[in-house]
């Protein structure tokens, strides 16, 4: 038996012993997800047991080095773990912007001190992070951001407003883009880590069309950010004024995550499920809808292959750096179409906004939520701009 097959057998046995049955159900909505953080509570014992087992094994961040709370798995091993978890439908033990976005940036740009402290805290789900990029005047044109940090020797004083900060009101820390040089557009931004409990940081939820409000405006008023959080733990990631490089690197990971390339079933085929679903409601699929579902399934299954190819190529260092933009674009457009078709297949039932049958209007709320997929993390238009300029090398702008 090869080492990898051996690893597969061990992993299978470990999952069998440690992943509770309740955690082997597809994630239906955000309630099923554990986000960690200072004030986090578990939904039930199974969720906690699964989380604890994974933390101990390093499986919240399997590919990170052991020294930073990971399991130090090689790329092929990580793939085996993903496959084995997918096989039993295991839920992710921990969801976090720390894992998806900040972690990779720290691994790449962080000091040893920052890695020791923050990566371990992220891996153990001890602090929950939010992302402070967008501002009311700076969305797609992010580099126009105005939040300003004034250098006061041993600390910065930060003033400004961020918007769309996902879960800011539940988060402990924010990674934030702050202008520290007003003369220099790209090379005047610093990537700062700020504790949300610092005096002067406040948040205000934004209610979305889905009726939920997982987003906030984040206000920064005379926030005193120390330049150092301890030995070799500067408050900024990378160099001062060079935060744009970090921000871009991180956006690459964010796009990968939103595109669903990292796994999950956001873009999986739905035709068969919609037929069953219709049958439960005493109905059948209209032939034209069935045809659209079939075309969707073709696209979704093909996109699934693309996700796999994309990950394989990343590991082999064969991807174009702008490829995540293409993945993000294609994946999010597909996910919107998926929910559109699920609404159609659900018929009037899926219009119910509060009923018990719909789990409090989940189909409709989820459908509404997906409309943001092609906006958050960079809009589809911006993705297409990047692909056309950087991959196809079309002229202009």
């Amino acid at each position, binding site marked *: 038996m090869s080492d990898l097959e051996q690893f597969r057998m061990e992993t299978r046995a470990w999952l069998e012993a440690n992943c509770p049955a309740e955690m082997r159900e597809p994630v239906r909505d955000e309630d099923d997800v554990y986000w960690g953080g200072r004030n986090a509570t578990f939904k039930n014992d199974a969720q906690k047991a699964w989380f604890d087992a994974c933390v101990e094994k390093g499986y919240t961040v399997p590919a990170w080095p052991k020294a930073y709370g990971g399991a130090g798995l090689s790329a092929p091993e990580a793939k085996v773990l993903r496959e084995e978890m997918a096989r039993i439908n295991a839920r992710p033990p921990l969801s976090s912007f720390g894992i998806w976005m900040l972690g990779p940036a720290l691994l790449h740009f962080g000091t040893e001190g920052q890695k020791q402290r923050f990566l371990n805290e992220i891996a153990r789900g001890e602090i929950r992070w939010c992302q402070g990029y967008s501002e009311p005047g700076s969305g797609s044109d992010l580099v126009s951001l105005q939040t300003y940090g004034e250098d006061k020797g041993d600390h910065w004083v930060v003033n400004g407003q961020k918007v769309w900060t996902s879960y800011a009101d539940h988060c402990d820390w924010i990674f934030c883009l702050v202008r520290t040089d007003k003369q220099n557009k790209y090379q005047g931004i610093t990537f700062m880590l700020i504790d949300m409990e610092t005096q002067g940081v406040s948040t205000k939820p934004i209610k979305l069309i889905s009726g939920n409000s997982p987003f906030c405006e984040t206000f920064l008023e005379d926030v005193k950010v120390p330049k150092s959080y301890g030995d070799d733990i500067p408050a900024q990631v990378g160099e001062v004024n060079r935060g744009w490089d970090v921000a871009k690197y991180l956006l690459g990971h964010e796009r990968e995550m939103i595109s669903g390339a990292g796994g999950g079933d956001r873009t999986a085929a739905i035709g068969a499920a919609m*037929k069953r679903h219709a049958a439960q409601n005493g109905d059948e699929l209209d032939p034209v809808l069935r*045809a659209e579902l079939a075309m969707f*399934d*073709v696209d979704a*299954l093909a996109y699934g*292959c693309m996700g796999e190819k994309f990950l394989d190529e990343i590991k082999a260092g064969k991807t174009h750096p702008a490829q995540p933009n293409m993945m993000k674009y*294609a994946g999010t457009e597909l996910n919107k179409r998926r929910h559109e078709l699920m609404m159609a297949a659900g018929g009037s039932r899926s219009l119910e906004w509060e009923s018990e049958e719909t789990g409090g209007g989940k189909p409709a709320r989820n459908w509404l939520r997906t409309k943001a997929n092609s906006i958050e993390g960079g809009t589809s*238009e911006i993705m297409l701009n990047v692909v*056309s300029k950087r991959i196809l090398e079309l002229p202009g702008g």
Partner: protein
Amino acid sequence: MPLYHDEDQAMLADTASSFMAEEGNIAKQLRHWRDRDCKDGFGHDLWKQMAELGFNGILVDEADGGLGMGHVEAGIVLEEIGRNLTPSPFLTSSVLAATALKHGSDDLKGRYLPGLVAGDSVFAVAIDETAKHRPERITTRAEKSGNGFRLTGSKSFVVYGGSADMIVVAARTSGADNETDGITLFAVPKDAKGMSHDAVRLVDSSMATHTKFDGVELDGDAVIGEVDGGREVLDAMLRAGRIGAAAEGVGVARGAMDRTVDYLKQRKQFGKLIGEFQALQHRAAHLYSEVEIARAVTIKTQQLLDAGAESADMMTSVAKAKVAKTARLAVQEGVQMHGGIGMTDEYDIGLFMKRDRALAEFLGDAYYHANRVAELSGY
């Protein structure tokens, strides 16, 4: 297995790519033969050269003189054929017929495979009987007669049928027209008495035939595989042909896209390169993303087929449908973004449009395969 080419495959891709660009290009092959109104629709010299490179026997077992490779490798050659619109009997001979012959007797293999591997023979397959691909329904009949069979019926859209030294024919030896079982495959030689061809040139300049079998007498050893048990061989052949057509379609899409993107970087209007207009940039980028996805599902499916995976059958339909949609988009956007010049015979982009139309129809179009995906998924 990772979803990209390993070293050997990358080497094969390099060889195939430079060979097709140099020898199989549009000027030297497609236009050359078309403008001479060639009755074969392809060049035998090129076929011979391909044999010298080992291409023709890619799917033929080593024991039979071939390379014993898989669908990934056949797909590499086909993608280059697609990019250059190279008229070639590779898909019908080296993929479809070769796959059928894998199931044939040693005698049949000995009779036909050396000619294929050497580039001396060309094969065709006769499955469809109507204008659309409907392999579920076979009405051409082969009745027992002495030691052999008498074949009666007709087949349509037999690609390169008129040039073929042998045609693999799917006929019914028992059962009703739309039954799964009762199919037998036959290797019908060129000179079989009672076989007649009505040759037609298709929109892409390729040649096909409507072939009639009027009591064609066949020896018992013309049977490929089991009598009445041919459906399995037919299915294997169809899977190979469909993923092959998908690979060629990816090539067509890439060829059209690459030419279009180049054009966007050259043509000026309103004092600018038209590639600077966002309206065109976004469509080009969308097209690129679809082409990448089509390539991914194609290589994934090739690997699944080579591994004999259970999901390979359905994924073959996913790939064929996805590629058909993508190549269609590529050629339509290609002609549109070329503006008026794209409508001229002088420019190559229109040739891609024609090839796409023929290739999409071959072995089932996007609708046929999406429908199959739905059925195989249980809805």
